[in-house]
């Protein structure tokens, strides 16, 4: 495939992140490894606490200091080693070359500043233009994300907009400098399905126009299926399976991916059928084993060694990788 010869826009290699808490050091990410190619949408999917957002925050170097730190690994973005960049240089990348869309638009916007002022700030910082030009560009951006009568909206405050409109403003801010990569952290989770459909459609159209890549974080497998070219399934700080969306949904190899897909009710499914469940809860980061982390919940017998020693990632078919625990994966 051509993609594999081309260099990825973003490559995350063996990224491990730890947090120091009152109860001790916890590993939030354990050797996370994936690529995002130019113009593609890659999804990170998993349950709460699996490390999806920590991955995004590590790439953006927004981990809370001093409790969170990267202990190993590399993040390469367009030839730049992001983890070793000076804070000043990193600020130039953030918002300019990598845009970020946050989950809760009300928290991502400043409640006491006008929409126009918040948008202009992006241009003032990254582009060498006058305030007036920045204001005009803000209006243009609002128009591009489908906000009606943008010349009036720039004078409004976030509380005057609906949830969907606020998320459009956040998207406008993330896209203002035409970044090559957009990191969207649960961009539609706080929204209604109808507004979610609008926002996903908008993101797809903007991506088509600008050719940028998207790293989409979500817990909704339906959103992944409809928007992503590739998907990484995360569990307890690790990627347990990754590959093209079609392959992962058609032939999931890891037991966790299979169980996750089976446990969601489907519109076309048999009504009132007892759903597949995964026993127990997502493990606490404080007591993680080193081997197969899904083992204790899998309902299948694991040996002591399988629970204490991590199995390597194995390529089961072209571009489809899985953490090859011999119990959870039938090869």
């Amino acid at each position, binding site marked *: 495939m051509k993609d594999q010869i081309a260099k990825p826009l973003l490559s995350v290699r063996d990224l491990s992140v730890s947090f120091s808490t009152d109860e001790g050091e916890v590993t939030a990410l354990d050797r996370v490894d994936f690529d995002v190619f130019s113009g593609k949408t890659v999804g990170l999917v998993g349950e709460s606490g699996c490390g999806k957002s920590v991955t995004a925050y590590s790439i953006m170097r927004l981990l809370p200091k001093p409790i969170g730190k990267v202990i190993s690994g590399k993040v390469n973005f367009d030839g730049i080693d992001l983890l070793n960049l000076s804070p000043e240089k990193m600020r130039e990348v953030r918002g300019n070359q990598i845009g970020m869309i946050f989950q809760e638009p009300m928290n991502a916007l400043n409640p006491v500043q006008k929409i126009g002022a918040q948008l202009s700030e992006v241009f003032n910082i990254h582009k060498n233009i006058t305030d007036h030009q920045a204001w005009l560009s803000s209006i243009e951006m609002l128009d591009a994300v489908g906000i009606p009568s943008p010349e009036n909206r720039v004078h409004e405050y976030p509380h005057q907009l609906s949830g*969907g409109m606020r998320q459009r403003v956040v998207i406008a801010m993330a896209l203002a400098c035409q970044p090559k990569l957009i990191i969207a952290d649960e961009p539609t989770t706080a929204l209604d399905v109808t507004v979610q459909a609008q926002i996903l459609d908008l993101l797809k159209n903007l991506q088509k126009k600008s050719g940028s890549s998207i790293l989409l974080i979500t817990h909704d497998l339906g959103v992944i299926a409809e928007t992503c070219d590739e998907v990484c399934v995360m569990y307890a700080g690790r990627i347990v399976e990754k590959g093209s969306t079609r392959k992962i949904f058609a032939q999931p190899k890891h037991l966790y991916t299979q169980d*996750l897909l089976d446990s969601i009710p489907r*519109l076309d499914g048999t*009504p009132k*059928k007892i759903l597949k469940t*995964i026993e127990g809860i997502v493990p606490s980061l404080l007591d993680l084993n080193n081997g197969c982390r899904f083992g204790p919940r899998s309902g299948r017998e694991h040996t002591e060694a399988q629970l204490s020693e991590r199995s390597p990632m194995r390529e089961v078919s072209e571009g489809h990788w899985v953490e090859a625990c011999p119990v959870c994966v039938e090869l």
Partner: protein
Amino acid sequence: MNAEEDFFQVKNLQVHFPVRGGVFKKAIGACKAVDGVSFSISKGQTVGLVGESGCGKSTLAKSIVQLVKPTAGELFFKGRLLVPGEGLTEYRKSVQMVFQDPAESLNSRMTVGAMVQEPMDIHRIGDKGGRLKRVERLLEQVGLPASSARRYPFEFSGGQRQRIGIARALALNPEFLVLDEPVSALDVSVQSQVLNLLMSLQQDLGLSYLLIAHDLAVVKHISDIIAVMYLGKMVEMGPSSEIYLNPRHAYTQALLSAIPIPDPSLKREKLIIPGDIPSPINPPEGCAYGHRVSATNYQESIQVESVWKKVGVDHWVLECPCCVSPL
């Protein structure tokens, strides 16, 4: 109508909140959160209620359990009209509610046992020893160890907390549960555990459910009847497979189309609804949905009074010249 269908009935229910303004905070308008809703639930049946946020789902639920006083309309439970102040205690015993966010609906300073026992204390059911026994049995019934009674909510995960909320709702042996988004705060793998629990409790205890959820896949999975609400009004109601296969109202069609389906090989044309749900304080004239999507026949809807029309077996739709195409 036979006795089965008479189990629970809502007739033309309205909940209007006053909008106050001016110097003396006089009511200058009304927010019509629920505007003339009628439906009925049979014994052992699940009715799923869907709609966008702000359409009045939760207000309807709260008015059913009498946490909000309806402005107008009638509630019938087992054929008896509910009169405020009369027999309300009995009614509350039989109709209980499970709330959306288990973290917020549990008292963090009470033990789980005390919380599950509280309804029995209030209604003076059994003696002390009997209540304690019942608490343990209830906890086991929802899949928690009996020893949980001595612990506090923070010691439990989200899914377990929701089980506690369900155990508390079951304490008085209710016949009807109103479930307000019971699984939306939960992870996918835990969501299926709670849904299975709800389905098995219904079978064992013969409960009726009014399930409110924004996830149509969840609603369709466990409901017999699906009701769709838009801006305080019920726009369509019918057997869940019928609503799914043959939706008649344009809003139901668009809502179904907006749901992302976890199957990447499926290619479908999406109906994207523009804009947001309008404010119930100042709703547009005529058909509110037709106004939002600028439907071609919208003008006609201003002149006609929309009526509830039967279009199939148990399948009803709010007739409207712009949103429902004639058969």
